């Protein structure tokens, strides 16, 4: 897995997980499919939290582990924190039933 400060689980993912507290303005590098990429963080990303590694349009799927983990509730730029403030879960949503 390497001593990277952020982990992308699968190549289809559009988010990475920070494995240290990372500050806004930090240039973080991570590995996707064996290739290293870098990105400027626009938000503080606490340990264990996610940031977008590519732009995610409103209502588009947020992908982690190569699977959808929810949908963006607004347009999310690369480098931004992705969490409950800008993504929704799509399952177990009794609040959305008629």
């Amino acid at each position, binding site marked *: 897995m390497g001593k990277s400060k952020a982990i992308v689980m699968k190549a289809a993912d559009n988010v990475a*997980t920070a*494995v240290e507290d990372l500050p806004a303005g930090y240039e973080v590098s991570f590995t996707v499919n064996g290739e290293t990429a870098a990105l400027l963080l626009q938000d503080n990303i606490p340990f*264990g939290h*996610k940031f977008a590694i590519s732009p995610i349009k409103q209502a588009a799927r947020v992908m982690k582990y190569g699977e959808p983990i929810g949908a963006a509730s607004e347009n999310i730029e690369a480098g931004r924190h992705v969490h409950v403030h800008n993504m929704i879960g799509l399952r177990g949503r*009794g609040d959305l039933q008629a």
Partner: protein
Amino acid sequence: MEFMGYRRPDGTVGIRNHVLVMPTVVCANQVARGISLNVKGTTWFEHQHGCSQLAPDAAQTARALIGHGTHPNVYGVVVVGLGCEVVRAQEVAAEIRKRCPYKPVQLVIIQEEGGSYKAIQAGAAAAHHMVLEASLVKREPVETGELILGTECGGSDACSGIAANPALGAASDLLIDLGGTSILAETPELIGAEHIIADRAVNEAVRQKCYDTIKAFEDSAIAMGVDMRGGNPTPGNIEGGLSSIEEKSLGCVYKGGSRPLQDVIGWAECITKKGLIYMDTPGNDIEQLTGMVAGGCQIAVFTTGRGTPTGSPIAPTIKVASNTAMYEKMQDNMDINAGTIVTGDETIEQVGQRILTEMLAVASGKLTKAEVLGHNDFAIWRIGPTM
């Protein structure tokens, strides 16, 4: 590969030799506690149920109690009832005797003994005798394939899915390859990951049962008319970086490893098959642990990112930390650190091997931190209204 266990007369294998004091109803909790506190070497638990329950609920409670009484980690059992409850202590004791005729079983009914002190006296005298007898039973070499592992995660964070759960999945695969059994559970924490487990089913019936079981659980949450988020994932999960139940589930499912899924069984139902089994349980840590142990798991491995202290009263519960910071902060509770995967110091396979090695040490008698701390956590999954 072998460990040192207790071979019971019916061929089942225990890894502990407990004398268990078990109330069949909430009204008997204090007497059960009184008995256990007076007899060193016993264990006990308490619970809220056993009365004012409709038949399916009462059956579920009885199943959990009988599963603990018959458990191979239990040498003998004192069954404590009040006398007027729905889940009859007489029937629970009779069923334990029927399934395990070799096992010492003492029935104590508070109303028949003539009150609490007399019931404590009767139960303590029986438990005292059982503890002396139990101390004579010797461990013997047992094949690792006799182990039934309950896998569990609780207080998850984002590292649970990156480190601790994949490592537990690797340990689960190693155990199954040695002829053992591993239980995957926590139905709400398979929502969004159902295809991953269902696609490994040994046949279409098991595959369909996966989907049906998970859908039924999701439907019950939806029927409450709220967003699951906040109830599961919990506020602590969310602080740890988990944003949805799907994200949590996709991390959870890793602890089931990669072997074929043999069967789907109900909460606290007897585990009879080898290999990977999915038990339908809530995500609630204690209700899940209780169900898996009642089904026959002799040992549980519990991964956690936030740090969770829980332990079964009769089955050793090994704690695996998903990150090094929490492992170091909660040394009181954590047995194994899987945070080395996150930092790149160990592979998933290496930590999986360490988990299996620790399981065999614990199965042979090494105490877990939860045992030393005296955990006797027990919770029954209530499925109906209180009458």
